[in-house]
């Protein structure tokens, strides 16, 4: 037997998050991911962890992600030169999902931008954080002070019980609007809490100093609804929720329009442009892109994994899978990928070529499961 799939260990020496010992103590299987030794699963396994998160609450260590603070009144306006989001309209304590673009409209990274009283807080992908920092340093107006805070920890508490659990430690967080932020204390630790996540469920991300991370994590894990969840379930949860994974579903060769992320481009930004690759992006917005990211449901039971060719009903190549596997809540294989625009409508029959065999599939609506973001 030999493994041919993903999530195999990296070769380079690996860094550890502040929760490394906690993961080990709880029996995690560790793998290399984006330069860090991270828990891929705990003893219950990916499917049980996934279902637990959808039913109750899961705690994820996402301290490998990069936190960057931008200080100065000019920060929002300056960052708009690098992203298509409307950041000047972002009110204090509100956050937005946006994209760092290159001059062709390709995506350098996807990130969360939160407006705090004294500037912006960015959360960027682990594998991209050094490159993003260099990009910001090279291109942002000098009036903006860039402060990498890669040493900080980041926890995600996700699931239908997340709000009730966190409210036991910080009264009122259960009434925080979706995509908002607040600074508060949890178990004596000063935290920036946002109501956001990467699972399709209600939940929070908690940014805090590294030396408080274990204490807060242990307190949260002490609540009966909360279980630790590994990167394996994080991936299946986000795939079911139709959320992109950088380096897989989006990268420098995909534009926001192809990726179905036109909703991240503010109305004012569409009118004014002024972001990298605006000519390409706005042209694709007007004329439609040649290819689109879509959900794909194989009709059979065989998963179609990243790199799987996609063909039309006559066998002609029309694209490929960028993320795929088994959806534990769906109970069937699910995938997303890029296909020619002509084959991108929901319900269109196509085929995925797994182990040289064409297997029937169809274009499916994203997300694959209903999302449960907090709507007040």
């Amino acid at each position: 037997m030999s493994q041919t799939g993903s999530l195999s260990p990296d070769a380079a020496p690996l860094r550890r998050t502040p929760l490394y010992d906690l993961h080990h103590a709880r029996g995690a299987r560790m793998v290399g991911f984006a330069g860090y030794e991270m828990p891929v699963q705990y003893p219950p396994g990916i499917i049980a962890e996934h279902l637990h998160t959808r039913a109750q609450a899961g705690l994820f260590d996402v301290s490998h992600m990069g936190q960057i603070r931008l200080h100065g009144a000019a920060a929002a306006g300056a960052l708009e030169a690098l992203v298509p989001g409307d950041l000047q309209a972002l009110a204090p304590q509100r956050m937005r999902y946006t994209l760092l673009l290159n001059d062709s409209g390709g995506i350098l990274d996807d990130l969360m931008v939160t407006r705090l009283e004294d500037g912006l807080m960015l959360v960027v992908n682990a594998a991209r954080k050094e490159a993003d920092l260099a990009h910001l340093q090279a291109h942002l107006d000098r009036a903006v002070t860039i402060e990498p805070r890669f040493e900080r920890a980041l926890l995600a508490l996700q699931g239908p019980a997340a709000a009730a659990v966190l409210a036991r430690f910080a009264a009122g967080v259960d009434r925080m609007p979706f995509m908002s932020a607040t600074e508060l204390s949890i178990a004596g630790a000063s935290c920036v809490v946002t109501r956001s996540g990467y699972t399709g469920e209600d939940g929070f991300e908690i940014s805090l100093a590294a030396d408080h991370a274990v204490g807060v994590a242990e307190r949260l894990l002490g609540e009966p609804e909360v279980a630790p969840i590994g990167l394996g379930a994080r991936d299946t949860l986000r795939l079911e929720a139709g959320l992109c994974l950088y380096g897989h579903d989006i990268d420098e060769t995909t534009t926001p329009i192809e990726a179905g992320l036109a909703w991240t481009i503010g109305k004012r930004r569409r009118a004014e442009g002024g972001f990298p690759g605006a000519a390409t992006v706005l042209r694709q917005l007007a004329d439609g892109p040649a290819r689109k990211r879509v959900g794909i449901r194989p009709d059979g039971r065989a998963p179609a994994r990243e790199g799987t060719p996609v063909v039309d009903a006559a066998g002609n190549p029309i694209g490929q899978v960028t993320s795929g596997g088994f959806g534990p809540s769906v109970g069937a294989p699910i995938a997303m990928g890029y296909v020619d625009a002509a084959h991108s409508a929901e319900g269109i029959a196509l085929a995925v070529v797994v182990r040289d065999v064409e297997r029937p599939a169809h274009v499916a609506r994203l997300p694959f499961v209903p999302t449960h973001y907090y709507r007040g």
Partner: protein
Amino acid sequence: MPSLRFTKDHEWVRQEGDVAVIGITDYAQSQLGDVVYVELPEPGRHVEQGKEAAVVESAKAASEVYSPVTGEVVAVNDDIVADPAKVNADAMGEGWFIKIRLDDPKQLDGLMDETAYQAFVAEQP
């Protein structure tokens, strides 16, 4: 009790007369995690020792299952196709994959016995 033989790729073989029952080991299923899909060969197909005979996919990844012996596939376990979690629940028993009529029973002598396999597993990182 019939003796078991093992490969370095974590397949097991149990000889029953001129037929070999083949599966993946309990260690293999524990390393794979949740099995979500199994693809088995058509009965009647001739498989070669060391060549791909089946596919097993976990929540994480796809893996090939190599045939530990050469011969004709005489039966496949449709139960694990219908319910792949059986491979996790009972890898060495109800989670068997295929039965092969042995071309050369002597091939089994070249495989590890249980003691050797346990020692091999203990060396895995």
